[in-house]
Each structure stands twice: as structure tokens, then as C-alpha cells.
């Protein structure tokens, strides 16, 4: 018992054990990537930058129902609706702004959308040089 306590106070067995764990890592598969020299491939279902989808005729799918804005817990979506130029729907968004600085990338907007019009893409490197650039408008969201 006394000897055991002494061994523990030496710390040597613990240090050796720790080094063994570290040494083993030299020969196993790498968990990290050399970012930014090497791009990381996000897992499936990764929630990154948003985009608005288009239908087969190239028109935006969004019908300005405000469900994403309603579901958004961060209150980062701002929509203004207007009448639609197409006969198959009543309204479309005139403005559609997402404040990427407020967004928490929870994906609730995508889940709430009844038209499958909004999507979170795997793009994670969302870079901007000003605050204004971080507010994505309708044009930017549609061109992603």
C-alpha cells in the first residue's frame, strides 16, 4: 500500500502511459487536415451558408410564406412579399435578407419551408470584409 502510494507520487507510470497514447497517434490515421492548404470536406447534412433554390424553369421556388422567418430562432431572416408575376402562385419575395452574423445555422428555416425553397449548403468558409456583405440578399441567395 505504501509502495503504491510512492509509485503514484513518482508520476512516472502515468507519464509513460500518456506518452504511449501520444506515440501511438504517430502511426494511426490523421484526424486533422492542413487547413487552409487542404480543404475540409464537411460531413453529409452539414449546415453552412444558405441558398434559395430555383425550379426547373429557373424561377425561384420561394412563395414568401414567411414560415422560415417564423421558425427562425435567431430572427435573422427578413422578407417583404409582393405580388407574383407568374400565374401559378400568388406572391413572391421582393426582398429576402439573411443576416449571416445573426444566423446560428440551426437549419430550422430549411425544415419549416413548405416549398423546399431554402437550403443550407455545405459551404462553411463564409467570408466578408464588411458587415453589410454579411447580409445576404435575394440576388446573392439565388446565385449560390
Amino acid at each position, binding site marked *: 500500500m505504501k509502495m503504491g502510494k510512492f509509485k503514484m507520487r513518482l508520476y512516472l507510470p502515468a507519464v509513460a502511459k500518456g506518452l504511449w497514447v501520444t506515440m501511438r497517434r504517430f502511426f494511426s490515421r490523421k484526424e486533422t487536415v492542413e487547413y487552409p492548404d487542404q480543404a475540409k470536406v464537411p460531413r453529409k447534412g452539414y449546415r453552412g451558408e444558405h441558398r434559395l433554390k430555383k425550379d426547373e424553369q429557373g424561377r425561384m421556388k420561394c412563395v414568401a410564406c*414567411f414560415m422560415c422567418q*417564423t421558425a427562425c430562432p435567431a430572427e435573422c431572416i427578413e422578407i417583404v412579399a409582393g405580388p407574383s408575376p407568374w400565374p401559378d*402562385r400568388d406572391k413572391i419575395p421582393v426582398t429576402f435578407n439573411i443576416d449571416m452574423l445573426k444566423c446560428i445555422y440551426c437549419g430550422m428555416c430549411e425544415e419549416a419551408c413548405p416549398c423546399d425553397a431554402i437550403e443550407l449548403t455545405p459551404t462553411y468558409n463564409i467570408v466578408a470584409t464588411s458587415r453589410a456583405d454579411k447580409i445576404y440578399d435575394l440576388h446573392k441567395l439565388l446565385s449560390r
Partner: protein
Amino acid sequence: MPKVKINGKEVEVAPGTLALKACLEAGVFVPHYCYHPGLTPAGNCRMCLVKVSNSRKLEASCMYPCTDHLEITTEGPDIDKARRDVLEFLLINHPLDCPICDKSGECALQDYTYTYRRGVSRFVEPKNIRPTKDLGPNIKIWGNRCIVCTRCVRFCEEISGTGELCVVNRGDHAVVDVFPGVPIDNPLSLNVVDICPVGALIDKNFLYSARVWFAQETKTVCATCSRGCNALVTSLDGRIKRIVARPNAAVNQYWMCDEGRRNFEYVASKRRLDSRRGTFEEMTSAARAIVKRYGSGSVGGVVSTYQTVEEMHLFAKLMKALEAPAPGILTAERGARQVFPGGFVIEADKTPNRAFAVRLWGEASVQDGLARVVTDIDGGRIKGLIVLNGIPHPPWPQAFLAAMEKLEFLAVIDILQSPVSDRASVVLPGTAWAEKDGVFVNVDRRAQRIHCVVPPPAGARLEVDTLQMALVALGARQAVVSAETVFGECAREYSEFAGLDYAKLGEHGVGLPEATESVSAAP
């Protein structure tokens, strides 16, 4: 008085009361579409089915008169099933397009669909397509959403007396429509949008402009005529989006006129005065200098009947402190008093607080308008003038505009830029009716509260504050207090307000007794 039992609870009702009304008054909710308390019952939606002791089958409670010892049961598995089946029939052709429907969030069909768990349709055949079209300058119909409850048709027959709407086609093709070439454009037309239980009839001015669950709703009083209809204002991000009627049996029943509903554009107008020219100190010192030089009665006033009780009270005090004669009263009479078959009235005076101006300065003075002020200016008796106006586009008499040139000093507290504000040396931006708290006295001498709905423009200041600051500067007042405290002062000063405060006025206002003391006579 017949005694009925509603879900085992005994209540007394007036003879002939319909079962649905008895239930609603007893606080027992029964779902319904076609029944509206302001209209004759139609009994066509079948949603209000209840069990009554006199009948073996379920009865539509909106058509079933209460008799003595009637027992009404509103909940139960068989009643629940009947209502679910009725809903299933209604939803056969009704699209579940709630996300893009403007009624979503305040739709009876949506609410009951959630309550009775009818989100899935068993109907596999294609749905009927009915047209989406304009019914008039303000109203559009989505035929697919119509459940043919005929509330709107009955409204046009019974309340507005115009009868533009009718039901066309038969069976499940039936839909509400107008007669060819006769659009619905009566002065009460937008009430049909209010009473539509689904999203079929939509106000074109409100279309797509807000989702109701994001908007704030404020109970207030319409300022568009001296009737003072109770109103509910929907606002979003500091902008008014629409005004709808709020029931008050003593004033407007359930209705409101189209003009009142649209009378808010000026609140966010580009012509709003939003920067001060001069200050209230300049106003008071200039007015005092004129009184000193020319003697009492040389400073006059003009006050509009758009001002609240508190503002008029303070303005009267200001006039007294400046030894001024009774002010000119600016009203906005337009057209004739309109009485509709349903008993709804639109008054000729398009200002909300004429009754209190009559109380303060006398009927003769209000009738006289600005005429005496104009003669006094022309005669050189009035050298300085203080104008307090809240009327959006006031009918300034030409003679008044001409007389203004003779003034040495003109101060204006107003909301919109006008020929009068252009000529003033002191301009103090005021607040519109939707930006302040106060009390209006309507044509039937009913005192009703108005509430602040949206914030005023940056440079504007509440009139009660401006007037009080001027009074403090003149040494006629101790301190600046809130509108509520000023109303407390009015309650002490004017016998008809005795014992009243904002809390006691409540949501529906209080009818005022006759004033006991005599009206201060115009000098």
C-alpha cells in the same frame, strides 16, 4: 325569463335567445362560421352542432331558440365527431394553402382544423377550382377558399343595405360573387373582410403587407369622424398596416367605415413635420412680448377638434395665461351624416373630439370656426397667433390664409407641412392620433381612450408636453406631467369627468353625464 342548462350549469336568458348566443354569453365556446352576432342567423355552416334535450338529433345551435328548462350539451364524443365530419366536408374543396393565405393566423377554419385534428384529407378526387378575382376597388376574393357561410352577403343586405354580393352557382361550385358590372364599393365594404371567417375575402390594401403573428395589435378609437368607432390597429416595425373594427355595442356595434380604415397613410407621410423651427421658449416669450406691447387680447389661438381632451384643456389654460380671447375652432365637416339600414352612422364632422370643444367653448364658438379669429386679425386686434392642429389635411379657409400675412407672430404645432406651417416663425412638430395617449369625447358624449400605436417621428413632441412646457415657462404651471395625470386634472375640473381615470374608461369608454356648470362664454 327562460332558464336553460348549459353543460349542467343553469343560466337565465332573454326569451327567444338562440342557443349559440346563450352559450357564448355564458362563456362556453361553440365553434361557428356563419353565425355573427351582428347579423341574422343563417344556419348553413353546421359547425355549431350541439345536443339539446328537446331533440334526438344534433341541432345547429345558431338557429335553435332557447325554451324554458332546455338542456344544452356542447361537448361529447358524438358532437366532436359531428363537427369533425362537418369540417371534413368544408375541407373537401378548401385548399390548405395557409402558408400563403393572408388570413392565416386569424382564420377560424385554420383554428378549428387544428382543434379537431383534420389536417389530412381522405378526398382523392381533384378539388374544384373557383376564380380568384377583384370584387371591387378594395376587395379581392379567393373563390377556392370560400366556404359559403354568406356572412358577407347578409352584411351587404342588412347592414350596408347595398346588396352587392350574392352566391352564384350551386352545390360545391357555389361561391360568393358580385353582379356583372356592379363592384362592391359601398362606404362599409371592408367590413366583409373582417367578418369573413376564412381567407376568401381579402383587403387589397393589406394584402401581403404583414403576417399577423409578427404584428402588434393595439385597441384604440378611430379618429376619422366624431362617431369614434372602436378600432384595432395592426402595426409592424413602427408602421400602421391596417385598422379593423372592434365591437362596442354603444358606439359602432361590430362595424367601421372604409374611410376610417384607410385614414392612416398620413401618419407615415413624407410631409410630416419632423424638425423644430424655434422652440417653445421663443413661442412664449414672443407671445408675452406682444401681450405687453398691445395689451390683453392681442394673442389669439386656433385649436382643432382632432386634439384630445387633455390637449384642449391645456390649450385653454395657455389661452388664459396669455389673456387671449376664446380660440378659433378648426373642424373638418364634409358631406352629410350617413345612416345605414343596419343602424351604423358616419358623422359629417370628420374630427373625433368636437363634443369636448363644444363643452369648453360653446356650440356657437365651434360653429363659428375661424371666422371670428379672421375678423380679429383683419381688425388688428390679434397680433400674434398660436395654432394647435392635428387634422391631417385641414380645410384652411382662404380668408384665414390671407389674414395670416397681417400677423406679427405665428406659432404652429402641427403634424403635416401646410401653408400655415410654411408661414410660421415657430413650428413645433406634434404627434398624430396614433402616436399619443388621450381621451376623445364622441358625438354621443362618450369618453373613450386612444392609445399610442406607433412611435412619433424623431423631431416630434407630444402636444401635452409642449403645452405644459409653455405653461411652465409662463409661470402658469408647476411641472410637466403625463397625459394620464393631466386627465386627472380634467376629472377634478370638469364635472362630467368626475371620478374618472384612464383605468375606469376601460376598453369601451364611459358615457358622460351632462355638465352641471355652464360653458365658459366666449368673450
